[in-house]
């Protein structure tokens, strides 16, 4: 602490201006937009947009769909997450290393592709799994229809599983097993203990997980768009998307009017989530080194439960990936057979790589990933530095500004950026997309860097000074090398996130500024599942290389930096977006 607080005042002010512009700016424009006559007439006051948006006859059905979808998903993914977290942290289930893999899954298979794979398996007309079951049992139709609320909940629930698992697992780790032992000694059975002690103590954590799942599914766009829209089931995000994409005049005013309410709900939910997390931290009765909960012996239930876990992993990764690979070689959807294998070719791959639009989308996505991640991480480094090293009211304000956008659903903030950018030269350019990406996803860059800064003990810098290094020299010799791995890994993760970005892009992408995910969505609309698969696999390949690279870089860093004990089955949450 070489009192240099004053030196940071201009930097702090600049960052507040920048971050504030990127987070509050689009929200303000969303509010102004909702009261304006149109995108070309900003500021001409009218209430028409609210009247027509809320008078829309399809709105009640959309709202009830949204409620069912959001709560169904939240219940499904919370139960699943708690179940897997319990098994991995508290029991002697085999192959715990597998659970460490969970958080990486959604980064490898973007939601659009996950949905595409399951559509080719479970769509009511020629879904491969449906066809196989019909042949097997002589059914006339069905039996599954992915284009339904049930199908949406199934897919979204699976996709939210890594997040719910990541919130539940630490709560399980810090749980004091003595509480349970006391119940057992008092005569309660294993099951009774679970019901009367374990679950009540974990209640705040479970509620927090549930709230987070609600936030995520409320903001979800890919699954409702891919699976809900063909079945004519609209939720709020797809409803907004319909307002701005279908028909001869997209109405961004109505989209803003509806989006604002969703945004308000999301902000309230995030506030609630934070309170619940704080409450659950109060229940942490045991902390400190060397503490390991006693493992519950599953006995005969061990292998059946393990099989259930394996099934989830198959649903999440193996089946969708295998389906995509298989489909990428076929001209149209076919159940695996000798004929199908004889018809396999590289045609889809050739078409995809040869298409000018898709090639442009590839280039755009690569540009956004590389340049966008660089800008986002540079900004994050400065923000994290100020937030950690400077203790002032301004730095606290900066921190809350940064984390504000955690609660913003991408689709709605995309509409906000639309209003924000429309009068600037950035409108309909890659630069505009870049600004929107950085603003929307800034917290995900700041978060890991903030913890990296926190971990660099002040004394490490100070000792370099005492032993003869100047301020700049100590930065070069100590701070930069210690920070570099975290910076690289944050960069890679941000780049991977920008490659699979859909909900902001779908609002802002225009001819000329196409991106991969949006193009995949268009191919899926045309039913070109083979090309979806081929292009999707290219995308999966890109982000997998990035994510695996990031983890390889992080591993030696995590080992050298701290010797804290990690309980098996828990993972560093900084890879997954959790507010």
């Amino acid at each position: 602490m070489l009192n240099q607080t004053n030196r940071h005042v201009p930097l702090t002010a600049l960052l507040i201006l920048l971050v504030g512009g990127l987070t509050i700016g689009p929200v303000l424009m969303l509010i102004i937009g909702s009261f304006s006559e149109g995108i070309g007439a900003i500021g001409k006051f009218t209430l028409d947009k609210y009247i027509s948006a809320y008078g829309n006859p399809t709105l009640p059905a959309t709202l009830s769909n949204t409620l069912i979808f959001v709560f169904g998903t939240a219940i499904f993914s919370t139960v699943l997450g708690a179940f897997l977290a319990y098994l991995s942290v508290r029991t002697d289930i085999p192959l715990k290393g597998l659970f460490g893999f969970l958080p990486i899954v959604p980064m490898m298979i973007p939601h659009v592709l996950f949905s595409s794979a399951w559509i080719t398996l479970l769509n009511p007309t020629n879904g491969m799994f449906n066809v196989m079951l019909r042949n097997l049992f002589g059914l006339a139709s069905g039996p599954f229809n992915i284009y339904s609320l049930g199908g949406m909940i199934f897919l979204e629930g699976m996709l939210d599983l890594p997040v719910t698992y990541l919130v539940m697992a630490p709560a399980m780790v810090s749980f004091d097993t003595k509480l349970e032992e006391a119940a057992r000694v008092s005569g309660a059975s294993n099951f009774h203990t679970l019901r009367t002690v374990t679950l009540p103590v974990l209640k705040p954590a479970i509620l927090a997980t549930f709230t987070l799942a609600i936030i995520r599914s409320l903001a979800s766009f890919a699954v409702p768009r891919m699976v809900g829209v063909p079945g004519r089931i609209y939720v709020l995000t797809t409803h907004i998307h319909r307002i701005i994409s279908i028909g001869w005049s997209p109405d961004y005013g109505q989209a803003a009017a509806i989006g604002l309410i969703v945004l308000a709900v999301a902000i309230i939910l995030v506030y609630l989530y934070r309170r619940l997390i704080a409450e659950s931290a109060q229940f942490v009765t045991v902390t400190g080194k060397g503490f390991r909960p006693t493992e519950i012996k599953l006995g005969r239930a061990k292998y059946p439960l393990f099989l259930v876990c394996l099934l989830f992993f198959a649903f999440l990764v193996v089946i969708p990936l295998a389906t995509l690979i298989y489909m990428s070689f076929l001209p149209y959807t076919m159940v695996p057979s000798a004929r199908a294998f004889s018809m396999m070719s590289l045609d889809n791959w050739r078409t995809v790589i040869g298409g000018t639009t898709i090639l442009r989308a590839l280039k755009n996505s690569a540009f956004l990933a590389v340049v966008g991640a660089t800008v986002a991480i540079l900004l994050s480094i400065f923000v994290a530095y100020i937030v950690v090293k400077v203790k002032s009211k301004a730095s606290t304000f900066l921190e809350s500004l940064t984390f504000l956008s955690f609660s913003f659903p991408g689709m709605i903030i995309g509409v906000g950026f639309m209003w924000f950018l429309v009068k600037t030269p950035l409108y309909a350019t890659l630069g505009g997309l870049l600004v929107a990406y950085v603003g929307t996803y800034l917290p995900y860059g700041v978060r890991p860097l903030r913890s990296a800064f926190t971990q660099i003990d002040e004394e490490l810098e100070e000792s370099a000074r005492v032993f003869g290094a100047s301020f700049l020299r100590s930065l070069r010799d100590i701070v930069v090398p210690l920070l570099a791995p975290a910076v690289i890994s944050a960069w890679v993760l941000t780049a991977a996130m920008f490659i699979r970005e859909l909900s902001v892009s779908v609002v802002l992408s225009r001819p000329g500024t196409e991106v991969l995910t949006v193009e995949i969505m268009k191919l899926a609309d045309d039913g070109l599942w083979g090309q979806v698969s081929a292009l999707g696999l290219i995308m999966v390949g890109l982000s997998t290389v990035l994510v695996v690279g990031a983890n390889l870089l992080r591993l030696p860093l995590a080992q050298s930096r701290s010797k804290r004990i990690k309980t098996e089955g828990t993972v560093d949450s900084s890879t997954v977006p959790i507010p």
Partner: protein
Amino acid sequence: MQGTISVRNLVKTFVSKDETVTALDNVSLTTPPNRILTLLGPSGCGKTTLLRCIAGLESPDSGEILIGEEPVWSKTKDISLPPERRGLGMVFQSYAIWPHMTVFGNVAYPLQMRKVPKPEIEKQVKKILSLVQLDGYENRPATNLSGGQQQRVALARALVGEPKVILFDEPLSNLDAKLRESTRKELRHFLTELAISAIYVTHDQVEALTISDDIAVMRKGVIVERGTPQDIYLRSDDPFVVDFIGRANFLEAKIKSYQSEELCVVTSSLGDVVCNAPAGLEAGTSVTIYTRPESFTVVPADSGLTENVFEAKVNSVLFAGEAHEVEFGIGNATVLAKIEFDIPLQRGDRVRLHIEPEWCRVLNPKRGASRA
């Protein structure tokens, strides 16, 4: 003079939550060359702040700091040397071993900063690692070391540049009790061997007593007493110091008369006691006297001693390993004494206790500070 640090009228205040805390309140101090001076005190007494001001990691509000003859910080002369130009060595509380470097990289760093030629660096690092008994550890990653080994790397790094003075900031507080004891002895051994000047900060009184040549006891930003470990432990007349270091029996008493310049008789609940007292207290002055538990001995009835022999009743006996901790009732007073374990004592026993006037001392009533 090389190897000494002088601090003159140093003041340092912090503002936290709209409240001003005075960490250093006009502190002056000169360290002896080639000796170990310990700053001892409870947490928040300003000892670490003083050390960090000397290192240059913190800026005082006013006063002056000199290393040797050279001022490194002075308000009036507007001098403020950055830490890297003060030529000191330091062992940090967390050791501050750089995790991305090897043992060699850590220890060589101070020499590299001074642009010492490479072969010379290698020679010196090897020499110093051998001194701290880490021969052959050069290429180990610094994180792949035990707590005790990290501590020794930190020491080697502080020693290697042959600094004018080495600063220690609670260097043993991260070790477990057993390792702390052996490391303490080891550290004392190294420092005596090298005849190096050191300032050592700790809140642990045993550590201070064993490791130092000289102790400065601090309280609320002020140095309350300065002296050798023996002086501090056995001969202090400051209420705070006596209470903070070790255990003591305190008794209210009144001055009766002086036997000599230092010895005087007081009346207390033990009866008349011959004590060591500060000079010039008037008869009838109310004072507090104190005794250390280990100063008492059990004497036979025919010992021939006449002064400071008390009829005592054993109230309770606690076996504490190396000795018995016995609570005696003497008249209306109770005192705690450590009695050798081979003297059989039981509750209710009546014995004669003796204490040398030298170890029965009157607290100086002029010292303002109350007991800790």
